[in-house]
């Protein structure tokens, strides 16, 4: 079976103040369907740039990156948007929910761009929120939800288009320890149901929930190994 993500000699360079910065400098990496991978590294290690590319938010300067078999370097802006919409679910550190918009409407946003009609949007969003244990919070705006609840809404939103990859960028960065454990437990459960999860983090405790750990430094992968003492929530 082809891997979900397949990076070959992947490079991303920026021109910054007349100097060329090699943010990702030749990365070969495969992530198979159903894996739970933690991507680690200090700031400036290239992990964020790598994440942007596997999230189809950015395209490589050189090398290839295939997402579910599609080389994203050859895609137009609209095609990248379609990949983000259908194949990837994003979870952010700051939750990024729309203010003054109910949990239900927040979860339904990706379905607008998928061209799903209003009734089905509501039904699918409600089902996802229910699965996140938020059936009684659907009409709440983010301001009325706790941090953990907000992140659950965000996860429901990420899952609503039934993507192949859940891509979380420091998902516990704004949460306390107990809530962080809770959210990582949600990721483990979802992974158990079959979805591929990639968590980008600089916290070893959080990375320990994953099954595989990839460490970035200076734009390269310097370590790629299974997590030995895996935590379970």
């Amino acid at each position, binding site marked *: 079976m082809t891997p979900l993500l397949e990076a070959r000699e992947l490079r991303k360079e920026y021109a910054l103040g007349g100097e060329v910065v090699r943010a990702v400098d030749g990365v070969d990496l495969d992530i198979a369907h159903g894996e739970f991978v933690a991507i680690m590294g200090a700031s400036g290690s290239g992990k964020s740039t790598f994440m*942007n590319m596997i*999230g189809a*938010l*950015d395209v490589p300067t050189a090398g290839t990156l295939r997402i579910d078999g599609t080389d994203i370097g050859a895609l137009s*802006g*609209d095609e990248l*948007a*379609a990949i*983000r*919409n*259908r194949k990837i679910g*994003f979870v*952010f550190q700051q939750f*990024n929910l*729309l*203010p*003054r*918009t109910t949990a239900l409407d927040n979860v339904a*946003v*990706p379905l*607008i*761009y*998928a*061209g799903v*009609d*209003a009734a089905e949007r509501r039904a699918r969003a409600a089902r996802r929120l229910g699965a996140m244990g938020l059936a009684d919070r659907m009409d709440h705006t983010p301001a009325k939800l706790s941090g953990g609840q907000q992140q659950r809404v965000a996860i429901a*939103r990420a899952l609503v*288009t039934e993507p192949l990859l859940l891509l979380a960028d420091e998902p516990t960065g704004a949460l306390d320890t107990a809530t962080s454990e809770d959210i990582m437990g949600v990721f483990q459960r979802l992974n158990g149901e079959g979805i591929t999860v990639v968590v980008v983090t600089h916290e070893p405790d959080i990375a320990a929930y994953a099954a595989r750990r990839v460490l970035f430094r200076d734009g390269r992968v310097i370590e790629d190994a299974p997590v030995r003492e895996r935590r379970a929530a």
Partner: protein
Amino acid sequence: MSGRLRRGLSGWLINVRIALTALRVNLTRSVLTTLGVMIGVLAVILAVAVGNGAKVSVMESINALGSNMAIVVPQPDRRGGQRTGERGRLTERDARAIERLVPGVRAIAPQLRSSVQLTVPGGRASSSAIGVTPDYGRVAGVDVDIGRFVSDLDERTAARVAVLGPSVAAKLFGDFDPVGQSVRVNRVPFEVVGVLQSKGSSFGNDNDDLLLVPLSTARQRLASATTPQGPDDLQLLFVGVEDGVDLRQAKRDMTRVLRDRNNVRRGETSPFTISTTEEFMEESNTVTGVFQGVLVAIASISLLVGGIGIMNIMLVSVTERTREIGLRMALGARRRDIRNQFLVEAAVLCVIGGAIGLALAVGAAAVFESVADFPAPIGPGTAVGAILFSALIGLLFGTYPAIRASRLSPIEALRSE
């Protein structure tokens, strides 16, 4: 409805909902911004309405003259060429010749006009007296409300009788029936034999402030400095033309007849001027059209300023919501989805402003109509046009901010605070 169309429509509806949420978040700002468009739309609609009112007024006053008619005045025709020192001439015999020789003439109404002082016991007024023949009523489209019109006998005997316009009757006699009463016209006693039906006013000009007397009587009794030189000279001639007759052709025929009678040679200026109601219509339509155009152009400036306000606030909104834009892009919004979202937001803002502006304009027009006695009609076309135009302003001035939003890089946008 096909699925594709329905999806497209629901996409726009979603954008309207997003826009309304966003506008509520910054309610004060939205209201202040939309104020510009509101005032702009108000100004433009009022300009259109006043222009329409002018057209209506002009039409009314032309129709008050009588619908299919030529007016001949003894003034050298300046439209034909250079001004000459020659004096104008128009006589009763000329009028008879037109009646006899020009095909399609229904009736003629030769006139002498003079300003007169009217006195009755306990009242006085000044007005203008028109010496007319019995056909005047038919040609000019006026009839008596009470009493009778000037008769053939009156005309033949130069009877001292007068038919009063309603305003004059009211001024001199109040609520009393003036028929049979005596009125002194320039100190000469006349008997009031009738009162005309009201023809209202146009452009604040009272069409009822006049009195009619027999032409022969006017010539004998009311002769003044304004009276022309010859014994049967006229100041004004109305020529009523049959319906369906080409007024341009009738005018050519009249010109030929009068030029022959006056021995005017080719290349010389006619000593008379003929205008037709058709020409009045055309001319006044041109004039009121220009008038309306100028008003609308001036009013449009305020709408332009309103539009610039929209653009300004949309740029602020895009900057403030950069993170939301990045998020939407990450969730799968294409560039055109983002662009449309902000276009719709600008259009919604403008349409709300336009609708309020329209409502205010309707109110203002009603006030204007009752206070200034000037019609300012706002038709359904104007109303729908105003709303559509507001939306257009929104789309126009929203385009630049919307395109700017759609061109943001998703990564940069997500990273912004």
